[in-house]
């Protein structure tokens, strides 16, 4: 794994030598996110979001573990213990608002991370496994976020749990028993709240485990980059530390400023007021909406309004609800076959003129429309618009991508990352020449660009 010129960990003191012999954990970190990991030198800020996602996973785990010390998963007191956290626990309001908005920011950075993958085709060989593990992480995140939203036991918690578990009720024949089994009753109650709390505590650690696999799989081929041209020579890469620790550190600062602005000044802007009303099984809210990060998929779910019938006979083959459920899960599950749908040998959208048009004028507006319609009430014209967008969503991934990857004439690729960054004239003559700056090697930081001895 890694490139021949990757720097080797060299323990300096007797103590670190001793540790390295017994348990080479510092060596592992050095090779994973330290100077021992050579990374393409041309990454833009879209490559920042993996680190940010890891950061917000840690924020969620740390705030969540402390919140769990003060919360009680019991339908009688759950809502009151959340208020206890808000009022009586020292800085409890800060913990809870950081956790609630942290979930939103986790999804923001994950969506940026996924769309980076879409545009730069990060899912293509040799990185399919990284992509597949990423989709698994995303599914786990959605399950975790849904169950976390149930825990405050407000109106939206309760009715959201009712609607989402009701999706399983759409399965023919066994649907209703499955829903009852999942909830532990006929409606969300103590049994459901308790198991959701248990799983909400467990799943983040499962996510952390899959994240480790995700990073492990990443270190086999190394990071992709905006040109989509694989690393060829040492001058194409820089060590992760200090180059990308510094760059990602700055990006983290910017995102933290936005996060702080939300937590301290608009903590409830992304939530729903109804969730400050205690759960009441006898009073249904006017509009049941999930959290904003589920809106695009909620729009797909609701786009199927008509049963699939045999025309003129009235025989129902598949109920509308089941069609919606299949489409909603299918819209994410199809990401699993994405590496094999898009067979264009060129990775980066910058060098794919046709793909690029469909990305910016097809997929992105479609996602924006689905997002908007998912948060809007289920009435016209939103239903009609979300149906058009849902149609394009499936066509884009399943029809457009396979076809354009066949017919598209890509633009010429640069020979190497170095050439893309510095320009043709000044590219080093021979691969693996030490200098990148065309004879001005003195300005390069010491050791970083020299051939491995």
């Amino acid at each position, binding site marked *: 794994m890694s490139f021949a010129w990757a720097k080797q960990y060299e323990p300096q003191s007797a103590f670190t030598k001793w540790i390295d012999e017994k348990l080479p954990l510092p060596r592992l970190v050095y090779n994973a996110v330290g100077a021992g990991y050579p990374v393409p030198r041309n990454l833009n800020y879209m490559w920042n979001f993996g680190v940010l996602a890891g950061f917000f996973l840690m924020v969620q785990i740390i705030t969540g573990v402390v919140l769990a010390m003060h919360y009680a998963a019991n339908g009688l007191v759950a809502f009151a213990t959340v208020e206890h956290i808000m009022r009586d626990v020292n800085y409890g309001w800060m913990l809870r608002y950081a956790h609630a908005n942290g979930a939103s920011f986790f999804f923001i950075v994950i969506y940026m991370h996924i769309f980076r993958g879409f545009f730069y085709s990060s899912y293509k060989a040799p990185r399919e496994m990284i992509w597949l593990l990423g989709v698994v992480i995303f599914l786990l995140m959605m399950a975790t976020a849904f169950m976390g939203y149930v825990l405050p036991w407000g109106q939206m918690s309760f009715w959201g749990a009712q609607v989402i578990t009701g999706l399983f009720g759409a399965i023919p024949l066994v649907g209703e028993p499955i829903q009852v089994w999942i909830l532990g009753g006929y409606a969300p109650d103590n049994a459901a709240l308790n198991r959701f709390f248990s799983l909400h505590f467990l799943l983040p650690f499962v996510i952390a485990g899959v994240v480790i696999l995700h990073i492990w799989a990443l270190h086999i081929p190394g990071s992709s980059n905006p040109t989509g041209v694989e690393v060829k020579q040492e001058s194409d890469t820089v060590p992760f530390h200090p180059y990308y620790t510094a760059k990602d550190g700055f990006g983290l600062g910017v995102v933290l400023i936005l996060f702080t602005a939300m937590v301290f000044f608009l903590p409830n802007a992304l939530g729903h007021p109804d969730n400050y009303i205690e759960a009441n099984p006898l009073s249904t809210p006017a509009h049941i909406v999930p959290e904003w990060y589920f809106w695009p998929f909620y729009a797909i779910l609701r786009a*199927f309004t008509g049963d699939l019938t045999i025309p003129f006979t009235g025989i129902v083959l598949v109920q509308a609800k089941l069609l919606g459920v299949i489409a909603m899960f299918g819209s994410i599950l199809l990401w699993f076959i994405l590496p094999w749908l898009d067979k264009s040998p060129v990775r980066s959208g910058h060098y794919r003129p046709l793909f690029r048009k469909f990305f910016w004028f097809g997929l992105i507006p479609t996602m924006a429309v689905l997002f908007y319609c998912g948060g809007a009430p289920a009435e016209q014209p939103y239903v009609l618009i979300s149906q058009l967008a849902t149609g394009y969503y499936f066509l884009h991934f399943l029809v457009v991508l396979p076809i354009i990857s066949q017919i598209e004439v890509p633009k010429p690729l640069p020979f190497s990352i170095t050439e893309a960054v510095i320009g043709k004239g000044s590219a080093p003559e021979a691969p693996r020449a030490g200098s990148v700056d065309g004879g001005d090697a003195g300005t390069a930081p010491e050791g970083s660009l020299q051939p491995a001895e």
Partner: protein
Amino acid sequence: MTIRLGGIIAGLAITAVLVLWSLLPGAYSYAFDPPAEPQPSAAFYEHGHGPEGGFAFDGVFGKWDMAQLQRGYQVYKEVCKSCHSLKFVAFRDLSQLGYTEAEVQAEAATWTIPGKDPATGEQTELPGKPTDYFPPVYYAGQGVPPDLSLITKARHDGSNYVYDLLTGYGEPDPAKAAKVGFETPDGLYFNKHFPNVNIAMPAPLSDDQLTYADGTKATTAQMAKDVAAFLTWTAEPSLVERRQTGWFVLGFLLFATTLAFLSYKQIWAGLKPKKK
């Protein structure tokens, strides 16, 4: 190749089902079916904008107006509490409104809390202590008046909503009401700022209904504004502290991010291609 062919077929099939069985019938009925009749009440709803001049706590630098919160507490105690509980607030919390410890104790003692007689063990009512929470309310009429602890967070733009609701009572325009056949049902009251304009709560406030301890003139608007401010505090006691902490954290982050930017620039300086 098989995957791509299967994908294309599946994609076309999903889209066909969506368009033929959902989109077209929906579009047809949207285009040709008569639109649903709007509720007659919808014509009378008016969106409120909160009190004139806003609240002292509005904006990112807003602070509590302690005198106003104390007046709002007086309105709650003399008007609202006969029907609405405040179960997440304790008497000890009143110290945040500028009352001294002795004042909080005296204030708590003016309330009666369900409890046990220490001598006989029988169910009885005891004077409140600072550690007690505001007592539950047993409402005799129909329905359950909502607990008010969180009401300003449980409604969109809640502080303004409470003010608008309390000042939104009146009579519907009779000419307009006759035209659309609108009538407020028996037992409900017309309120132009309530979502369906018929509310079960009769107008709770009227001018000079109470005498403010600090001598402020007790107009309906004044009392509505004061109690809306008080209920904003009960819903989010940490509001002002939260923003102050936020400014401190933001300042630190701006400083740290500037340093991060400078070190990023310095570390990458030797690597950036020279402009030719």
